[in-house]
């Protein structure tokens, strides 16, 4: 059973989003997503300063047998990326909600994040995907 922390928001495309105190959003991929992908060998992070619309592909997670786009959960500008993933992409496997975060976003609309899935809805979503 995948871990789905209750305090986070989620996307149907398996990103998680954490609201930080300064209004920025930290984004990663869920425990469920990393388990599906298997051992990651590479994470392509977006460029700091780049702007994305909600749903834009902005990062890539790559395992030995698959590569998946990571989508911007809401519109915004990239504030920071997790540079450590260049040397240790396995952090996404080991700590998807911690050291495995991928990028931080300054949302264009602070309220947009509220429309994302809560933990219960996301859990139901991954169960329905089987």
């Amino acid at each position, binding site marked *: 059973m995948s871990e789905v922390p209750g305090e986070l928001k989620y996307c149907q495309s398996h990103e998680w989003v954490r609201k930080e105190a300064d209004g920025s959003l930290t984004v990663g991929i869920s425990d469920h997503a990393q388990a599906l992908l298997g051992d990651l060998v*590479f994470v*392509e992070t977006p*460029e700091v300063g780049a702007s994305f619309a909600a749903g834009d592909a902005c990062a890539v997670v*790559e395992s030995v*047998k*698959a*590569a998946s786009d990571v989508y911007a959960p809401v519109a915004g500008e990239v504030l920071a990326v997790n540079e450590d993933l260049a040397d240790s992409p396995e952090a996404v496997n080991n700590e998807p909600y911690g050291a495995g975060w991928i990028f931080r976003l300054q949302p264009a609309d602070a309220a947009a994040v509220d429309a994302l899935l809560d933990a219960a809805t996301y859990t139901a979503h991954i169960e329905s995907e089987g």
Partner: protein
Amino acid sequence: MAFVPHTASDVSQMLATIGAGSIDALFDEIPANLRVGGLPGIPPALSEMQISRLMERRAGQDAIELNFIGAGAYEHHIPAAVWQIATRGEFYSAYTPYQAEASQGTLQLIYEYQTMISGLTGLPISNASLYDGASALAEAVLMAVRANRRSKSRRILLPRSVNPRYRSVTRAIVASQGIELIELDFDAATGRMDPAALKAYEGQDITAVVVPQPNFFGVLEEADALTDWAHAQGAQVIAVVNPVSLALLKPPGEWGEAGADMVVGDGQPLGAPLSSGGPYFGFMCCRKEHARQMPGRIVGRTIDADGKPGFVLTLQAREQHIRRSKATSNICTNQGLVVTAATIHMALLGPEGLERVAASSMANTQQLAERLTAAGFELAFSGERFHEVAIRLGQDARGVLARMADHGVLGGYALGEDYAGMDDVVLVCATETKTSEDLDTYVNALQASV
């Protein structure tokens, strides 16, 4: 010739199975303007006997023995062992033999191929081949756009001294992808790019600059200066090279201060016969940091659980089963058999053998140029060359070449086919396959034909 029958009843049965009413209905998806009724030179259905006759007659057109045409495809001696080994069933019968479950033999061969091509180009990463040199250039342009994240312009400087076929293929592949190909002229006297001509693009956002070495005229470009200029603009450098020339010339990985970023070319001179134009293969190398942007796959050497060496697909980031809609490996599947021949060819020649091939090709072309100038012909360009030289004839080159063919000599390539104002210029190549007598035969045939 294989016998593959499909009778009218076979056809109607197949159509009925898939629910199409007729052959026309089957191809209904294809817009009418893209469908061709008949192809020039290709007759309608013939009997087996008629087609054998026709093909024998056409094969005869290739029978002229003294070939001095280069222009992108080069005649070299191929040791008999090359294709004897390459056409063993183990190499040519397997379907997608590079897949993870592939034979170790094929993986080892690709590993050795990648190692040798890397050695020649001076860049650490090589893929396992593309269709040909032209599509390799197109893919390098696409890759430069993916890899150069600093540049937003998607503008590529593509000199007119790059093989015209490569340019038209590249244009066909990338022009509808929001990529702008900007042509750069060459200096009419030297035949090479004038670095001063680049001035207009100084300080502009350019994604990449294509640098041919030698260029289509056989002339050597100032690769160091061009590379440094491009890098100073934040542009990447895509080198287009002849692999045989690299046995003598500086590898692109060492051009200028930082070296070229990508190297592409056609591998045909490494063991593939001319075969009226194919199949050939394209090679492509890049820097380590761009490996994940490169189409294709990389084979690595590793050690298994028992400590035994083995070969594996190390990187296949752009394979269809991994990248799906973003896959690029579909454009490089699969020139494996020609690559097999090239690897055997390079292994048999060794670095010294390849260097001898390159040096005697260059010396023969130099000799030919001297004999032609002594005979009163004028060289079109003053720039230094590798193994190809442009000669000014003072009259239409096509007519002269047709008359030379009557003397049993394929005299070269008429540059007027691609370059306005060069109707009287012929591009001539003399590889190591030509003897001193052959060169005399050429000069005599040319003199008799003008």
